[in-house]
Protein backbone atom coordinates (compact mmCIF):
# COMPACT_ATOMS: atom_id res chain seq x y z
CA UNK A 1 0.00 0.00 0.00
CA UNK A 2 1.40 3.35 -1.02
CA UNK A 3 1.99 5.77 1.78
CA UNK A 4 0.90 9.29 0.97
CA UNK A 5 2.44 12.49 2.31
CA UNK A 6 2.23 13.05 6.06
CA UNK A 7 -0.99 14.85 7.03
CA UNK A 8 -0.26 18.53 7.48
CA UNK A 9 -2.13 19.02 10.75
CA UNK A 10 -0.81 15.94 12.54
CA UNK A 11 -0.98 16.18 16.33
CA UNK A 12 2.15 14.77 17.99
CA UNK A 13 1.65 12.75 21.19
CA UNK A 14 1.38 15.02 24.19
CA UNK A 15 4.32 13.47 26.02
CA UNK A 16 6.87 13.76 23.22
CA UNK A 17 8.97 16.64 24.51
CA UNK A 18 8.13 16.43 28.16
CA UNK A 19 10.94 16.99 30.61
CA UNK A 20 11.44 18.18 34.17
CA UNK A 21 13.59 21.18 33.22
CA UNK A 22 14.44 23.17 30.08
CA UNK A 23 16.66 21.02 27.85
CA UNK A 24 16.20 17.87 29.93
CA UNK A 25 13.85 15.07 28.92
CA UNK A 26 12.47 12.11 30.77
CA UNK A 27 14.21 8.96 29.57
CA UNK A 28 12.50 6.96 26.82
CA UNK A 29 10.98 3.59 27.67
CA UNK A 30 12.99 1.73 25.03
CA UNK A 31 16.45 2.92 26.15
CA UNK A 32 15.51 2.22 29.78
CA UNK A 33 14.53 -1.35 28.95
CA UNK A 34 17.67 -1.88 26.86
CA UNK A 35 19.86 -0.42 29.60
CA UNK A 36 18.31 -2.84 32.09
CA UNK A 37 18.91 -5.78 29.73
CA UNK A 38 22.55 -4.73 29.29
CA UNK A 39 22.91 -4.53 33.08
CA UNK A 40 21.46 -8.02 33.54
CA UNK A 41 23.95 -9.30 30.95
CA UNK A 42 26.82 -7.58 32.79
CA UNK A 43 25.57 -9.02 36.10
CA UNK A 44 25.28 -12.48 34.53
CA UNK A 45 28.85 -12.24 33.21
CA UNK A 46 30.10 -11.26 36.69
CA UNK A 47 28.22 -14.20 38.23
CA UNK A 48 29.68 -16.58 35.64
CA UNK A 49 33.15 -15.27 36.48
CA UNK A 50 32.49 -15.83 40.19
CA UNK A 51 31.27 -19.37 39.52
CA UNK A 52 34.30 -20.09 37.34
CA UNK A 53 36.60 -19.02 40.19
CA UNK A 54 34.48 -21.07 42.61
CA UNK A 55 34.82 -24.11 40.36
CA UNK A 56 38.55 -23.64 40.08
CA UNK A 57 38.90 -23.42 43.87
CA UNK A 58 36.72 -26.53 44.27
CA UNK A 59 38.84 -28.50 41.79
CA UNK A 60 42.03 -27.38 43.51
CA UNK A 61 40.59 -28.30 46.91
CA UNK A 62 39.63 -31.76 45.58
CA UNK A 63 43.15 -32.30 44.27
CA UNK A 64 44.83 -31.50 47.57
CA UNK A 65 41.87 -33.06 49.49
CA UNK A 66 41.42 -30.03 51.70
CA UNK A 67 37.90 -29.65 53.09
CA UNK A 68 38.81 -26.35 54.69
CA UNK A 69 39.86 -24.83 51.37
CA UNK A 70 36.67 -26.05 49.69
CA UNK A 71 34.40 -24.74 52.44
CA UNK A 72 36.29 -21.46 52.77
CA UNK A 73 36.34 -20.91 49.02
CA UNK A 74 32.64 -21.67 48.70
CA UNK A 75 31.74 -19.33 51.58
CA UNK A 76 33.86 -16.52 50.15
CA UNK A 77 32.53 -17.09 46.64
CA UNK A 78 28.91 -16.99 47.66
CA UNK A 79 29.53 -13.93 49.81
CA UNK A 80 31.03 -12.25 46.75
CA UNK A 81 28.04 -13.19 44.60
CA UNK A 82 25.65 -11.97 47.30
CA UNK A 83 27.43 -8.61 47.55
CA UNK A 84 27.41 -8.14 43.77
CA UNK A 85 23.74 -9.12 43.52
CA UNK A 86 22.73 -6.68 46.28
CA UNK A 87 25.19 -3.93 45.53
CA UNK A 88 25.50 -3.61 41.76
CA UNK A 89 22.49 -1.41 41.03
CA UNK A 90 22.49 0.74 44.18
CA UNK A 91 26.24 1.41 43.93
CA UNK A 92 26.00 2.84 40.42
CA UNK A 93 22.79 4.74 41.14
CA UNK A 94 24.45 6.28 44.14
CA UNK A 95 27.79 7.01 42.45
CA UNK A 96 26.97 9.18 39.43
CA UNK A 97 23.42 7.93 38.83
CA UNK A 98 24.37 5.65 35.93
CA UNK A 99 24.78 1.90 35.75
CA UNK A 100 27.01 0.68 32.88
CA UNK A 101 23.84 -0.03 30.86
CA UNK A 102 22.47 3.45 31.52
CA UNK A 103 25.81 4.99 30.55
CA UNK A 104 25.59 3.20 27.22
CA UNK A 105 22.18 4.73 26.49
CA UNK A 106 22.77 8.15 28.07
CA UNK A 107 20.39 7.74 31.00
CA UNK A 108 20.71 9.01 34.53
CA UNK A 109 18.63 8.52 37.66
CA UNK A 110 18.25 11.67 39.76
CA UNK A 111 16.29 12.96 42.73
CA UNK A 112 12.74 13.68 41.63
CA UNK A 113 12.36 16.80 43.74
CA UNK A 114 15.19 18.85 42.27
CA UNK A 115 17.27 16.70 39.92
CA UNK A 116 20.13 16.31 42.37
CA UNK A 117 22.14 13.13 43.02
CA UNK A 118 20.70 10.16 44.93
CA UNK A 119 21.65 9.43 48.51
CA UNK A 120 22.86 5.92 49.37
CA UNK A 121 19.61 5.22 51.21
CA UNK A 122 17.57 6.29 48.20
CA UNK A 123 19.60 3.97 45.98
CA UNK A 124 19.05 1.03 48.36
CA UNK A 125 15.35 1.84 48.59
CA UNK A 126 15.13 1.87 44.80
CA UNK A 127 16.44 -1.70 44.61
CA UNK A 128 13.88 -2.66 47.27
CA UNK A 129 11.35 -1.13 44.87
CA UNK A 130 12.54 -3.51 42.13
CA UNK A 131 11.61 -6.40 44.39
CA UNK A 132 8.22 -4.89 45.22
CA UNK A 133 7.58 -4.54 41.47
CA UNK A 134 8.43 -8.19 40.92
CA UNK A 135 6.30 -9.44 43.81
CA UNK A 136 3.25 -7.55 42.54
CA UNK A 137 3.25 -9.11 39.07
CA UNK A 138 5.68 -6.58 37.54
CA UNK A 139 2.95 -3.94 37.47
CA UNK A 140 5.45 -1.56 39.07
CA UNK A 141 7.69 -1.66 36.00
CA UNK A 142 4.75 -1.14 33.65
CA UNK A 143 3.89 1.94 35.71
CA UNK A 144 6.41 3.94 33.63
CA UNK A 145 3.84 3.78 30.83
CA UNK A 146 1.19 5.42 33.01
CA UNK A 147 3.07 7.94 35.11
CA UNK A 148 3.38 11.51 33.81
CA UNK A 149 7.04 11.62 34.79
CA UNK A 150 7.62 8.01 33.62
CA UNK A 151 8.28 6.71 37.10
CA UNK A 152 7.99 3.07 38.05
CA UNK A 153 7.07 2.14 41.60
CA UNK A 154 10.77 1.87 42.39
CA UNK A 155 11.03 5.53 41.37
CA UNK A 156 7.97 6.51 43.40
CA UNK A 157 9.27 4.59 46.41
CA UNK A 158 12.75 6.11 46.23
CA UNK A 159 11.48 9.51 45.00
CA UNK A 160 13.61 9.42 41.86
CA UNK A 161 13.15 10.02 38.14
CA UNK A 162 15.18 8.87 35.11
CA UNK A 163 16.31 11.50 32.59
CA UNK A 164 18.23 11.60 29.35
CA UNK A 165 21.73 12.98 29.70
CA UNK A 166 21.77 15.95 27.29
CA UNK A 167 24.54 15.76 24.72
Amino acid at each position, binding site marked *: MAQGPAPSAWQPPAEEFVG*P*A*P*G*IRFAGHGPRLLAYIVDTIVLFAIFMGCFAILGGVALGAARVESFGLAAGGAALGFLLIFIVAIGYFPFFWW*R*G*GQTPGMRLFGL*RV*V*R*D*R*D*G*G*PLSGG*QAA*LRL*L*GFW*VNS*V*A*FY*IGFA*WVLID*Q*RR*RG*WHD*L*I*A*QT*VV*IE*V*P*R
Partner: protein
Amino acid sequence: VTESAGPPAVPTGAAAPPIGWEPPPEAIEGPAPGIKYAPHGVRLLAYLIDTVVLIAMIVAWVFLTAAAGALTSDAVGVGIGLVSILGLLLAMHAYFAYSWSHGGQTLGMKPFRLYVVRDRDGGPVGRGKAWLRAFGLFFIDGAVLYIGFIWVFIDARRRAWHDIMAETVVIQK
Protein backbone atom coordinates in the same frame (compact mmCIF):
# COMPACT_ATOMS: atom_id res chain seq x y z
CA VAL B 1 34.76 12.02 33.46
CA THR B 2 34.41 13.47 29.96
CA GLU B 3 30.92 14.78 30.64
CA SER B 4 31.57 18.52 30.71
CA ALA B 5 30.21 19.05 27.18
CA GLY B 6 26.59 19.84 28.20
CA PRO B 7 25.14 23.15 29.32
CA PRO B 8 25.69 24.16 32.97
CA ALA B 9 22.16 23.04 33.88
CA VAL B 10 23.09 19.38 33.31
CA PRO B 11 23.30 17.24 36.45
CA THR B 12 26.61 15.37 36.45
CA GLY B 13 26.48 12.97 39.34
CA ALA B 14 27.27 14.84 42.52
CA ALA B 15 27.09 18.25 40.83
CA ALA B 16 24.52 20.88 41.70
CA PRO B 17 20.91 20.21 40.67
CA PRO B 18 19.84 21.75 37.36
CA ILE B 19 18.27 25.19 37.22
CA GLY B 20 14.58 25.39 36.46
CA TRP B 21 13.81 21.84 37.62
CA GLU B 22 10.12 21.31 38.14
CA PRO B 23 9.39 19.12 41.15
CA PRO B 24 6.79 16.35 40.87
CA PRO B 25 3.31 17.69 41.56
CA GLU B 26 2.97 15.61 44.71
CA ALA B 27 6.25 16.76 46.29
CA ILE B 28 4.71 19.67 48.13
CA GLU B 29 1.34 18.12 48.74
CA GLY B 30 -0.05 17.43 52.13
CA PRO B 31 -3.38 17.76 53.91
CA ALA B 32 -2.19 20.82 55.88
CA PRO B 33 0.79 23.22 55.91
CA GLY B 34 3.88 21.47 57.24
CA ILE B 35 2.28 18.01 57.02
CA LYS B 36 3.07 15.68 54.12
CA TYR B 37 1.33 12.56 52.99
CA ALA B 38 3.71 9.79 54.00
CA PRO B 39 6.16 8.93 51.19
CA HIS B 40 5.82 5.42 49.78
CA GLY B 41 9.39 4.46 50.63
CA VAL B 42 9.25 5.11 54.36
CA ARG B 43 5.81 3.54 54.56
CA LEU B 44 7.28 0.39 53.04
CA LEU B 45 10.20 0.44 55.48
CA ALA B 46 7.83 0.96 58.43
CA TYR B 47 5.76 -1.98 57.24
CA LEU B 48 8.88 -4.16 56.98
CA ILE B 49 9.85 -3.30 60.57
CA ASP B 50 6.33 -4.17 61.74
CA THR B 51 6.59 -7.44 59.81
CA VAL B 52 9.65 -8.31 61.90
CA VAL B 53 7.61 -7.55 65.05
CA LEU B 54 4.79 -9.77 63.76
CA ILE B 55 7.18 -12.62 62.94
CA ALA B 56 8.64 -12.42 66.45
CA MET B 57 5.10 -12.51 67.83
CA ILE B 58 4.19 -15.53 65.71
CA VAL B 59 7.34 -17.46 66.65
CA ALA B 60 6.77 -16.84 70.37
CA TRP B 61 3.10 -17.77 70.02
CA VAL B 62 3.84 -21.02 68.22
CA PHE B 63 6.50 -21.91 70.79
CA LEU B 64 4.12 -21.30 73.71
CA THR B 65 1.31 -23.22 72.00
CA ALA B 66 3.59 -26.16 71.28
CA ALA B 67 4.78 -26.16 74.90
CA ALA B 68 1.19 -26.05 76.18
CA GLY B 69 0.22 -28.85 73.79
CA ALA B 70 3.13 -31.02 74.85
CA LEU B 71 2.20 -30.68 78.53
CA THR B 72 -1.41 -31.85 77.99
CA SER B 73 -3.15 -34.80 76.32
CA ASP B 74 -3.61 -35.03 72.56
CA ALA B 75 -7.28 -33.99 72.53
CA VAL B 76 -6.67 -31.00 74.79
CA GLY B 77 -3.59 -30.12 72.71
CA VAL B 78 -5.68 -29.90 69.53
CA GLY B 79 -8.16 -27.69 71.33
CA ILE B 80 -5.38 -25.46 72.57
CA GLY B 81 -4.00 -25.27 69.04
CA LEU B 82 -7.30 -24.16 67.53
CA VAL B 83 -7.90 -21.55 70.21
CA SER B 84 -4.30 -20.42 69.82
CA ILE B 85 -4.67 -19.77 66.09
CA LEU B 86 -7.70 -17.59 66.75
CA GLY B 87 -5.85 -15.87 69.56
CA LEU B 88 -2.85 -15.18 67.34
CA LEU B 89 -5.09 -13.63 64.71
CA LEU B 90 -6.66 -11.40 67.36
CA ALA B 91 -3.25 -10.49 68.78
CA MET B 92 -1.94 -9.50 65.35
CA HIS B 93 -4.98 -7.28 64.84
CA ALA B 94 -4.62 -5.90 68.35
CA TYR B 95 -0.97 -4.94 67.81
CA PHE B 96 -1.83 -2.72 64.87
CA ALA B 97 -5.21 -1.50 66.10
CA TYR B 98 -3.98 -0.53 69.55
CA SER B 99 -0.97 1.31 68.09
CA TRP B 100 -3.14 3.25 65.68
CA SER B 101 -5.83 4.24 68.17
CA HIS B 102 -3.28 5.12 70.89
CA GLY B 103 -0.93 7.67 69.36
CA GLY B 104 -1.42 6.67 65.73
CA GLN B 105 1.95 4.95 65.39
CA THR B 106 3.16 1.37 65.28
CA LEU B 107 6.77 0.62 66.25
CA GLY B 108 7.79 0.66 62.60
CA MET B 109 6.25 4.09 62.01
CA LYS B 110 8.03 5.82 64.91
CA PRO B 111 11.54 6.22 63.36
CA PHE B 112 9.98 7.89 60.32
CA ARG B 113 7.53 10.14 62.20
CA LEU B 114 4.55 8.58 60.42
CA TYR B 115 1.05 8.82 61.90
CA VAL B 116 -2.32 7.35 61.02
CA VAL B 117 -4.97 10.02 61.41
CA ARG B 118 -8.63 10.57 60.56
CA ASP B 119 -8.85 11.56 56.91
CA ARG B 120 -11.68 14.03 57.51
CA ASP B 121 -9.93 16.32 59.98
CA GLY B 122 -6.55 14.84 60.94
CA GLY B 123 -7.81 13.82 64.38
CA PRO B 124 -7.02 10.58 66.23
CA VAL B 125 -8.35 7.26 64.96
CA GLY B 126 -11.07 5.60 67.06
CA ARG B 127 -10.85 2.02 68.36
CA GLY B 128 -13.46 0.59 66.00
CA LYS B 129 -11.92 2.22 62.93
CA ALA B 130 -8.46 1.02 63.99
CA TRP B 131 -9.66 -2.60 64.18
CA LEU B 132 -11.41 -2.23 60.83
CA ARG B 133 -8.16 -0.87 59.35
CA ALA B 134 -6.19 -3.84 60.68
CA PHE B 135 -8.76 -6.23 59.19
CA GLY B 136 -8.49 -4.45 55.86
CA LEU B 137 -4.69 -4.62 55.96
CA PHE B 138 -4.68 -8.35 56.65
CA PHE B 139 -7.60 -9.59 54.57
CA ILE B 140 -8.85 -7.04 52.01
CA ASP B 141 -5.80 -5.37 50.45
CA GLY B 142 -4.22 -8.62 49.34
CA ALA B 143 -7.47 -10.30 48.33
CA VAL B 144 -7.45 -9.07 44.72
CA LEU B 145 -3.87 -9.27 43.42
CA TYR B 146 -2.64 -6.83 46.11
CA ILE B 147 -4.48 -3.99 44.37
CA GLY B 148 -5.44 -2.65 47.80
CA PHE B 149 -1.78 -1.85 48.51
CA ILE B 150 -1.11 -0.66 44.97
CA TRP B 151 -3.84 1.92 45.53
CA VAL B 152 -1.35 4.19 47.34
CA PHE B 153 0.24 4.91 43.96
CA ILE B 154 -3.11 5.90 42.46
CA ASP B 155 -4.90 7.73 45.24
CA ALA B 156 -4.31 11.49 45.45
CA ARG B 157 -4.10 11.25 49.25
CA ARG B 158 -1.98 8.06 49.05
CA ARG B 159 -4.64 5.90 50.70
CA ALA B 160 -4.61 2.12 50.45
CA TRP B 161 -7.91 0.27 50.61
CA HIS B 162 -7.55 -0.16 54.36
CA ASP B 163 -7.24 3.61 54.66
CA ILE B 164 -10.36 4.17 52.61
CA MET B 165 -12.27 1.54 54.63
CA ALA B 166 -11.31 3.11 57.94
CA GLU B 167 -11.47 6.71 56.64
CA THR B 168 -7.83 7.33 57.54
CA VAL B 169 -4.73 8.80 55.92
CA VAL B 170 -1.03 8.33 56.75
CA ILE B 171 0.98 11.52 57.27
CA GLN B 172 4.57 12.44 58.01
CA LYS B 173 5.34 15.25 60.45
